[in-house]
């Protein structure tokens, strides 16, 4: 079944087609959510929301991008909104001296070292950019579609995100360890 046929059948509420769309795209969507949230329980919950929203709003999908890119967009939006809510709640509860009421995100099983660990500490929007580019392999145009920004801004935002990540990493990259920009000899280039 072509993607176009699949979407058409999904628009008619065809459960088989919905399952097929899920089978084709869920590894990507779920993986992105796990990486964004660093918590498999939350990713499980939000993945449900993503697909329910997608099936409910599939009439809005205009076909200009791949369906997977459209799902990425929904997933990124859901994840960013969720992280925003969690942060607000955590800050409020911490202000009230009850930080433990909301459990910190990133459980032990999800904790990873080095790049993954640093990736978890960059701003969620930067994380989304880096994940879409490097782990999901999207080109700049698809990233722009997924994030709802202009294609021209993807390169500069990725540059900034990479630099922030490298600052956090502080080591492990040859003789440029810990530096955010190389020291060029005057007049070089």
């Amino acid at each position, binding site marked *: 079944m072509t993607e176009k046929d699949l979407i058409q059948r999904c628009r008619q509420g065809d459960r088989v087609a919905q*399952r097929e769309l899920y089978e084709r795209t869920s590894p990507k969507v779920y993986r992105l959510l796990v990486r964004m949230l660093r918590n498999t329980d939350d990713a*499980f919950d939000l*993945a449900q929301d993503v697909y329910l929203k997608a099936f409910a709003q599939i009439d809005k999908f205009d076909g200009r991008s791949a369906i997977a890119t459209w799902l990425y967009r929904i997933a990124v939006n859901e994840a960013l909104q969720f992280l925003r809510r969690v942060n607000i709640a955590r800050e409020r509860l911490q202000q*009230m001296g009850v930080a433990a009421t*909301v459990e910190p995100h990133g459980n032990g099983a999800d904790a990873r070292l080095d790049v993954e660990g640093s990736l978890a500490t960059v701003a969620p929007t930067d994380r989304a950019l880096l994940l879409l*580019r490097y782990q999901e392999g999207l080109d700049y145009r698809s990233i722009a579609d997924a994030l709802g920004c202009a294609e021209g801004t993807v390169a500069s935002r*990725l540059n900034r995100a990479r630099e922030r990540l490298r600052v956090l990493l502080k080591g492990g*990259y040859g003789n440029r360890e810990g530096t955010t920009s190389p020291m060029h000899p005057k007049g070089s280039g």
Partner: protein
Amino acid sequence: MRCEEIRQQLGPYLDNELPSGVEALVSAHLEACKTCRLESAALNRLASQLERAPSVPVPDALWNSIEHRLDTESPRVVTPPPIEPVWAGRRGPLALAAAVILAVGLGTMGLMSSESHAQPSVSFCVLLDALPLDAHKAFRKFLVLYDAKQVTPVEARRHAPELSFDTPTTLPGGFRLQGVYLLRFGERPGIAARYDRNGEFLAAIFHTPVRQEHHGTHKDLPCVVGQHRGHKVQVGDWKLVHLTDPTTCHCVLSRLDEQSELPSIMAVVAPPAR
């Protein structure tokens, strides 16, 4: 191009996103400039590390959960038959029960008002779905979903003056208050309270009542606390009971027996409407 300009292009260069003319310029520069070559190599290693992510298998249960929600959260609007509230002279849980309208249904609920369709919703899915695994965690997720802020009982009343509720420090049966939270259901305030009895968890949630709501996963059961129509949602041993008066929907999540302990607690947390 100078090194600084080249460095701005290295990311897109390594990502194969540069126009061919610019790509050739960057390539030529890298041939000649060792410093930029090192920077390019560092970026390349970073990219390689980012790409080497461990695989994440999709849980087998995910589709089942989605399908379950597709089946149960379709927008079937259920309108309970009108029941006139009779609050005057209420004494005890049975009288309370007779005097309320019990909202039917869970899931996504439109708030009762003339502009109900434009109002934000209250969703208990996050609470119900996680209940069998860990009630505390399910409740915490609900708090997070609705921007919980811990407040004192007095502050709760001040922030939600339109709701009628009570969060005493103890409930019948020996439950002790652990925390009161101000929630935001869109523009409307809500209140949640957490109680404990020797490790036994009980939660109360108060929000603006509903007239119309999308039917949830529950069945419309005989009233659990009295003579009126009503329902409970049961997930395993857990029950979420709704008791609604003209101003407030009072929801109690517990494992209590609905014939013995629950009515007296409902009577305390759901005082007569003002």
